[in-house]
């Protein structure tokens, strides 16, 4: 090799090395910048949690000190907002669920509970019980803030970095360092003694312990249950090639599981079903069959769904809405007691639009809430209720309806379907108090009506 060629080779090598070095440095910079951005994002969320949590503590204390129900309303609405913001930000931190679950629940409930108090119809007075619960929540909030401050000090002292935990490199840690999970564990330990909160809100503790009211009758054996569900499922003439019990299910309604196979061997259609041990009620079944192109109309599908329920001895059900998705139609039914539609007693059916087969039957809602109801006498008349409506609404239909409240209690209401500026609404006026309880906007799409 002569000198020129040697030099040329060296230059080429150095140029390539240079390019590689520049590329490497730019990669490292990009990575560092991404890391800093992540770290900033996590710190923003953490400081947000801290600030909101301090606000919660102050608002609880102000609420306890206030003598004006109106001002308590304002403070508690503020509390609800701050608690929501704290909870939302807490879940943006890269922490394991088991170190934030109770803190998260505390934040959800403290806001939800305060909000439920402000919404009470009876003059919004806090009872003595509410006050003592609020005191306990206040103590918990104080403890939470003490612990959050410790986490913040540990973060500021460089004992952990949020994004370092995320990469899971724990072995490289310097002595005395910890993970964010470890740091947060002490926060969670302060949340062990939360009071059980029962109130009219969506996150009240009583909802988790709801009992199935519609599951009546005697215990049935697995064989009886299997026989029952075999005659219940809409096989549409398909031959059952295989059927088996899949064991028991320990859900809200103790049940037997079954599986049926139809169709050809290569791609069988699997039908899965659950039947309650008490009374042998079919809780749900669903068929995995792929639906071919739609051949029947939505109106025909609706008739298939209605006839299916009737033939299975489920009576007094009224279609409340339908929704088309792909080649299937979901048909929703609610129980009708006399002239009153009872929305909590809900059954949903999915109809295949190729042959009208009932692919899914889901009666969990119905079985959880259906019972003989002793509906109260309305205290206000239909015409009085109509006067409570916004005068701009043009009423098109009206009837009585039972609707669930946030806390899953039931409210007897007048339901008005009404129009304003060409848009449709459903308005519910409480038949006992005359309060407007709910308002839904109806959105008409090609597939059906959405309730917003």
């Amino acid at each position, binding site marked *: 090799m002569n000198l020129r*060629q040697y030099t040329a080779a060296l230059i080429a090598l150095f140029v*390539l090395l240079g390019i590689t070095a520049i590329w490497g440095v730019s990669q490292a910079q990009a990575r560092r910048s991404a890391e800093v951005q992540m770290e900033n994002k996590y710190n923003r969320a953490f400081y947000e949690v801290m600030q909101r949590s301090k606000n919660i503590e102050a608002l609880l204390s102000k609420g306890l000190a206030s003598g004006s129900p109106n001002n308590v309303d304002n403070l508690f609405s503020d509390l609800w907002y701050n608690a929501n913001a704290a909870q939302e930000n807490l*879940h943006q931190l890269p*922490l394991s669920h088991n170190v934030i679950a109770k803190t998260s629940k505390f934040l959800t409930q403290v806001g939800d509970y305060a909000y439920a108090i402000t919404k009470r119809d009876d003059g919004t007075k806090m009872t003595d019980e509410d006050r003592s619960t609020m005191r306990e929540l206040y103590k918990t909030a104080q403890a939470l803030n003490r612990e959050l401050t410790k986490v913040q000090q540990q973060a500021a002292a460089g004992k952990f970095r949020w994004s370092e935990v995320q990469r899971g490199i724990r072995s490289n840690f310097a002595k005395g360092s910890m993970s964010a999970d470890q740091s947060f564990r002490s926060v969670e330990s302060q949340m062990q003694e939360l009071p059980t909160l029962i109130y009219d809100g969506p996150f009240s503790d009583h909802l988790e312990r709801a009992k199935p009211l519609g599951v009546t009758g005697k215990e049935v054996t697995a064989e009886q249950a299997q026989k029952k569900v075999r005659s219940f499922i809409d096989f549409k003439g398909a031959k059952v090639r295989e059927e088996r019990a899949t064991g028991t299910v*320990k859900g*809200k309604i103790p049940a037997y599981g079954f599986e049926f196979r139809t169709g050809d061997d290569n791609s069988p259609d699997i039908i899965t079903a659950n039947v309650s041990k008490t009374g042998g009620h079919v809780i749900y079944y669903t068929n995995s069959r792929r639906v071919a192109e739609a051949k029947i109309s939505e109106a025909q599908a609706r008739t298939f769904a209605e006839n299916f329920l009737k033939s299975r001895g489920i009576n007094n059900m009224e279609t409340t809405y339908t929704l088309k998705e792909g080649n299937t139609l979901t048909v929703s039914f609610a129980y009708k007691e006399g002239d009153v539609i009872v929305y909590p007693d809900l059954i949903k059916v*999915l109809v295949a639009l190729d042959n009208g087969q009932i692919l899914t039957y*889901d009666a969990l809602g119905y079985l959880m809430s259906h019972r003989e109801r002793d509906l109260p006498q309305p205290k206000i008349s239909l015409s009085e209720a109509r006067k409570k409506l916004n005068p701009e609404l043009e009423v098109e239909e009206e009837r009585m309806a039972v609707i669930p409240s946030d806390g899953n209690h039931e409210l007897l209401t007048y339901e008005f379907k009404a129009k304003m500026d060409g848009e449709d609404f459903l308005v519910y006026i409480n038949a006992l108090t005359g309060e407007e309880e709910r308002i839904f906007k109806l959105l008409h799409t090609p597939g059906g009506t959405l309730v917003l």
Partner: protein
Amino acid sequence: MDMKKPQYGLAAVIALSLVFFCAGYLLWRQGGPDVEPRVDTTDSVAEASPETNVDNVDLLARVIMGEAADEPYLGKVAVGAVIMNRMRSGSFPNSLSGVIFEPWAFESVENGLIWSREPTDDCFRAAVEALNGFDPTYGALFFWNPSKPVGPWIWSRPIITQIGDHVFAR
């Protein structure tokens, strides 16, 4: 012949460098999760359930695809139902996107898999049924594959049922 040998040497150096360079470039390309631009499939999913909106079907179908692509149909609905149940639980975020994008919550969200695969038809049907309130898990908040390693604390949860390869627990 003698004259050509050094030129071979030069060519070899350059060729080798190019090979390394290309290999490095390819490695770099594959390094990050290959996130493809999101394909808007809302046209094919024109409908959603009441109280939810159209985009939710697409997002939920993607997570179902990411978490339960090889599961039976009911197992797909069940994964969708767990996400819906988390929304209603006080110890999880209370929005669909909050639950789905919570750090550590779903592997297929963490590694970007939900954006790289288009959900199949039965993922869409499962998403619609889950959004409609169909819950074959009776309120489960967790699911895992018992044949894969999971954190020890998760086994302390009361198991409700097994569907396909996943167990579902409160």
